[in-house]
C-alpha cells in the first residue's frame, strides 16, 4: 500500500475543479489509457492570466490528486508565471509523492505546458509528444522528456527516470539509451557500451572469453557439480579443462561443445571452437 500524505488523500477524495470547462480556451492533453494514466487540462486564459482551470483524469489516486493540485496552483497566475511551475511544485503542493508516483506530477507539468502551447497557437499533438524522439516505446516517452526530467529533478538512475517519466518501466529495451540520456543531461561521459560482438582485438576477445566463462558458464556447470577452467586461447580456438563432476562425466564432451561453445559463439564470436585439454 502506498504511503500517501493527507494532502494527496484530500485532493483524491475531494478533488477540486473536476470536469470540462466550457469557456476554456486552452486545453492540454497528455498520457493515454494504454499507459494507465491520462490528463486533460482545461484553462480559461484572459489578458494573459489564468482565470479558471479544470481537469479530467484517468489514473490512480496520485494522478487525480496531482491534477487537482495543479488546477489550484495555476488559478490566478499569469501564463508566464504558470510556465515556471515544475513537477516539483506540484509534488510539494501535495506534501510530497511516493517516488514511484512522481510521474503523476510530471504528467501535470506536461499537460500545463501543452495547454499553454495550444493557447499560443503552437502545434501540439494531443497524444504523442511532438518534440524529440521516442525512446521508450512501451510508454511513448521521448528523449526530450527524459532529459527534462533528469535536469529538473536531479535524477541519477534508470529507476529514477522510470519513477518520474515511466520510461523504461516496460520491456526494458531502452535502458541503455536512458543511461546515455542521464549522462548527457548530467554532463557526464556515457557509460561504455557493451562490447560489440565483432571487430574485437585479440586482447579484447581474450578478456571477453574469460569474462563469459567466469560469469555465465562456470555458474551453470557448478550447479551440476562440475567446473571449468581456461587452459589456453589461440585465435578462435579455446582450450579448457573440466573439473569436478564433469571430469568423469560421459556427457562431458557434449557439455563442452553444447554449452560452452554455444555460449561463447553467441557472446564472443560465431567462429569460436572449444577443445578439451
Amino acid at each position, binding site marked *: 500500500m502506498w504511503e500517501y500524505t493527507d494532502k494527496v488523500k484530500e485532493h483524491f477524495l475531494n478533488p477540486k475543479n473536476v470536469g470540462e470547462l466550457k469557456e476554456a480556451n486552452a486545453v492540454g492533453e497528455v498520457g493515454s489509457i*494504454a499507459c494507465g494514466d491520462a490528463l486533460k487540462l482545461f484553462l480559461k486564459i484572459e489578458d494573459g492570466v489564468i482565470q479558471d482551470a479544470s481537469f479530467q*483524469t484517468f489514473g*490512480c*489516486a496520485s494522478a487525480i490528486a496531482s491534477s487537482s493540485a495543479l488546477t489550484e496552483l495555476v488559478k490566478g497566475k499569469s501564463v508566464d508565471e504558470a510556465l515556471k511551475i515544475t513537477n516539483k511544485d506540484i509534488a510539494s503542493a501535495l506534501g510530497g509523492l511516493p517516488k514511484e508516483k512522481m510521474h503523476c506530477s510530471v504528467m501535470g507539468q506536461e499537460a500545463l505546458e501543452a495547454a499553454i502551447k495550444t493557447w499560443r497557437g503552437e502545434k501540439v499533438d494531443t497524444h504523442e509528444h511532438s518534440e524529440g524522439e521516442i525512446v521508450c516505446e512501451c510508454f511513448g516517452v521521448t528523449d526530450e522528456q527524459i532529459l527534462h526530467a533528469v535536469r529538473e529533478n536531479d535524477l541519477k538512475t534508470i529507476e529514477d527516470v522510470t519513477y518520474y517519466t515511466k520510461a523504461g*518501466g516496460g520491456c526494458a529495451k531502452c535502458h541503455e539509451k536512458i543511461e546515455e540520456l542521464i549522462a548527457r543531461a548530467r554532463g557526464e561521459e556515457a557509460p561504455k557500451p557493451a562490447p560489440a560482438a565483432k571487430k574485437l582485438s585479440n586482447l579484447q576477445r581474450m578478456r571477453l572469453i574469460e569474462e563469459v566463462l567466469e560469469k555465465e558458464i562456470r*555458474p551453470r556447470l557448478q550447479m551440476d557439480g562440475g567446473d571449468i577452467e581456461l587452459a589456453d586461447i589461440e585465435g578462435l580456438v579455446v582450450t579448457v579443462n573440466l573439473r569436478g563432476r564433469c571430469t568423469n562425466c560421459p556427457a562431458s564432451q557434449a557439455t563442452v561443445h553444447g*554449452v560452452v561453445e554455444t555460449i561463447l559463439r553467441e557472446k564472443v564470436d560465431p567462429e569460436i571452437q572449444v577443445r578439451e585439454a
Partner: protein
Amino acid sequence: MSSETHRMPTIYMDNNATTRVAPEVLEAMLPFFSERYGNPSSMHSFGGAVGREMREAREALADLLGCGSDEIVFTSCGTEADNTAIRSALTAQPEKRHIVTTRVEHPAILSLCKFLERSQGYRVTYLGVNAEGQLDMKELEDSLTDDTAIVSIMWANNETGVIFPIPEIAKLARSRGIFMHTDAVQAVGKIPMNLRELDVDMLSLSGHKLHAPKGVGALYVRRKLPYRPFLIGGHQEHGRRAGTENTTGIIALGAAARAAKAHLPQENTAVRALRDRLENALLAAVPDSRLNGHKEDRLPNTSNISFKYVEGEAILLLLDQLGIAASSGSACTSGSLEPSHVLRAMGVPFTFAHGSIRFSLSRYTTDADVDFVTTHVPGIIETLRKISPYKQGAPDPLDPKPACGC
C-alpha cells in the same frame, strides 16, 4: 501510523492474498508457542510429544490432499515449495535442460524460471492462454521434448481463479516420462483433490491461503520420485527439508487442513453462491464492466471484474474508505507500470485491464458483506468515471500506439 490504518476492514474480500487464521486453528497452535515448545527431534518425551502432534498434522494434510503422509514435506511457504520442486527436478535430471510452464504463473514460478533461463542457461517454454484464461492442450503437448525436465503448471490462477485441467496435464506429462509439478496454492481447500488418483508428481501449497498462519507451506512429493533437497542441513523431514520444524505453523496447517476438508462442500455451495450473487449484481449494475476469466472453470471464491475507463488503484482506495478490502491487477497498485501479466496474457484490452478488481471470498464472507459491496461499488465507479476524460459512448480512446511488445 494512525490507528485507522490498523482497523480491521469491515468487509474482507481479498482472500486470495491471504486469509484470516481460523479460530480453531489459532487455538490448536497456541500451546506450541508457550508450554509445548519442545523440539520434535529431541530424545526426551517433552520434544517427542510435539513430534507426535506434528505427525497428526501431517496425516490431516495428507487426508485433505488424498496422499500418504510420508509424501508431505513441510516448508516455510508456497514459494519455497515451488522453488524446491523445480530445482529438485532439474538437479535430479541434470541432462535435461528444458522447463515448460505458463505465462500466467505466480512470480514464485515465473521469476524462478526467468532466473534459470537467464543465468543458468535453461530453456523455458511459457505457454499462452486464451481470452478466457485457458490453456491450449495441443500447445502443451507440442512443447514437450525429450529434453523437458519438468512441467510446472498452476492448478488455479490467483488473479482470475481460472482452473487448469491438472489431471489431464499430469497424465500427459507422465506418458512422456516428464516430471509434473503444480502450484496449487490457490486450489487446495477450495476444490476437492485426490492425488492418489492423479499423475501429479509434486504439488505446492501455502498455509495462509487456507486459514493457517503465514510462514508455513508444504510440498507433496510422490513416493519414489527422484528428489533432491533444496535446504541442506539436518535430517528433518526425512532429509528432504533441513531446518528445525516450524512446529506451531505445522500444527496450525494440520488444523487448517481438517477444517478445510470439513468446509470443502461449503466452498462450492455457499461461498460460490455468494460470489455469483456479487458478480452478477456488479455486472448488471455497472455499465461497461466485464468478467475476466472463464465463467465455469473457475475457483468458487474468486471474481475478477474490469470496469472500463477507470483505474484500479483509485477504485481500491475508495473501497478502502468504506472498509472494503479487495485487490487489483492495475499497474499502479503493484508499483510496476504495466497491468497484471495474467490479464495481458489473456489479451484483456488496456481500456479494461487498468480497471480490474479482484474480489476473493471465503467461508467467513456473509450475505451482508455482499450486499454492502454491491450497494457501494456502482457509486464508486460512477464517481471515478465523472473524473475520467474517457466516457461511455465516446469513440474508443485506445491509443493507436501499440502496447509493449514483450
